[in-house]
């Protein structure tokens, strides 16, 4: 059964310098609070994996936590560029950022292979694209029945996966619903799993339409962090703070403005919502 812990303690014990860390969430249920705790604890040298690194990864990269990014689309959805990401890639600030770049279909299947404990997955993808020339995690495989050549992508098995969910019960069983993205696969592919949740319910989880339920025995720690996805959202608990995403463009464009934001909103904040 998963332990129910404070976010501070869970991050301290589960996320180590140099780890490959997947913080997943397809626009919905993005684990912002956990990412801020990772920054606060000064974890460095991370390989960050996510299909759609957006503002939370801009923050992690700008704060210097990352050495490498494994991804398929890095932008501020509907707004524009990720300026901290670009500054790291283009100018090496605050560190150079290595990239392992894929398409969405490729990244999704890398997690599927990881969750299935297979070394690779097969897809009809990357055809004619320059992407395979920039990564060593795309190759070709031949169908033994038809002779057709298909793309193979290497399994992605993060050291740690962090996701945010709506609910857990006292045994650490977790339920999330709405857009569930690739989170189940990212969790089952990982060596260690941390889930932040909006709510810990008494008694059994009430089944929801469209929900994913993960038993506590595949999770290492659950931390109660209401609002832990903000400015992303948790369906049924909050709505997406689109204004924040739009304001981020100005905050992140300038290094000093960003560093001030980081001081005020991450470094100097003890997350008072954390607890168990």
């Amino acid at each position, binding site marked *: 059964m998963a332990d129910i812990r404070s976010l501070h303690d869970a991050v301290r014990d589960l996320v180590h310098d140099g780890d490959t860390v997947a913080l997943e969430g*397809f*626009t*919905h249920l993005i684990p912002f609070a956990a990412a801020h705790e990772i920054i606060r604890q000064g974890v460095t040298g991370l390989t960050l994996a996510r*299909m*759609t690194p957006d503002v939370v990864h801009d923050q992690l990269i700008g704060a210097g936590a990352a050495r490498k990014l494994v*991804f*398929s*689309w*890095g*932008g501020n*959805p*509907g*707004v524009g*560029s*990720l300026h901290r*990401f*670009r500054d790291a*890639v*283009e*100018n090496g600030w605050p560190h150079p950022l290595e990239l392992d*770049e*894929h*398409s*969405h*279909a490729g990244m*999704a*299947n890398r*997690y*599927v292979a990881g969750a299935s404990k297979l070394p690779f997955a097969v*897809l*009809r*993808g*990357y*055809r*004619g*694209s*320059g*992407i395979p020339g920039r990564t060593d995690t795309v190759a070709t495989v031949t169908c033994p029945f038809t002779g*057709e*050549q298909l793309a193979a992508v290497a399994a992605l098995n993060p050291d740690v996966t962090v996701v945010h969910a709506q609910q857990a019960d006292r045994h650490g069983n977790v339920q999330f619903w*709405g*857009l*569930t*993205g*690739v989170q*189940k*696969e990212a969790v089952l592919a990982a060596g260690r799993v941390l889930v932040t949740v909006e709510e810990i319910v008494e008694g059994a989880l009430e089944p929801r339409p*469209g929900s994913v339920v993960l038993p506590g025995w595949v999770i290492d720690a659950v931390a109660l962090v209401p609002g832990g996805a903000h400015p992303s*959202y948790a*369906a049924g608990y909050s*709505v*997406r703070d*689109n204004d924040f*995403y*739009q304001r981020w463009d100005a905050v992140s464009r300038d290094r000093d403005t960003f560093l001030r934001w980081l001081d005020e909103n991450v470094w100097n904040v003890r997350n008072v919502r954390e607890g168990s």
Partner: protein
Amino acid sequence: MSGTDGAARCGRDELMEVNAARALAGARNCFVGIGLPSTAANLARRTVNPDLVLVYESGTIGSRPTRLPLSIGDGELADTADAVVSVPEMFNYWLQGGRIDVGFLGAAQLDRFANINTTVVDRGPDRPEGRLPGAGGAPEIAANCGAVLIVLRHTRRNLVPALDFVTTVGHGAGPGDRAALGMRGAGPTAVITDLGVLRPDPDTAELVLSALHPGVTTEQAREATGWDLRVAPDLTVTQAPTDAELSALRALKAAGGRAS
């Protein structure tokens, strides 16, 4: 009200958006990228194709948003969907499964064979590569849909003689390339810009100017294109947006966070 009047009443972006929506007439479903494609697809549902099934890569099938989503993961997309599936299922069973009629893409750079770059741009010898968001779903959307529509603003920066990087193949280097690569479907069938519509020449697969929006000249379009843009012998002028189209578009944008 004449077509030219309609054009006078609206901006170039609106001409692009209205014509992009029209390109979805008759489609059963559409795999929708965020930004301009989402604007066009949502407008199509309010005008030329009320039954159009919107499929977003975040996992929603049959979404009916009341306002323009800012991101492909806005809550309303899930709340109003017929079905929500996981992202791996979306890409494997629905997109790769060949179930999508039309894929609708944006682009940062587009070449004459409708290949797309959304990865990096060359900014000259003294500057590092400029970083773009990356591939997202585009390579497999272009490979697996029945047809592909592309919408982007018509500038020399966007429509380039040679891509700095090939993220997504449209027609490759010409006819037969898609088949040789084992790609399904017709590939890009139209590129809708704020100046007009480009379509691949059936013989060469090169994009040619096939329609201009009202008030736009061939010279303007050629001037805004980074290659020597050929003009179709049967060049037409797009019908000006109707009142219904414009009011639907403006209502959609007013309700949404942002249009594109």
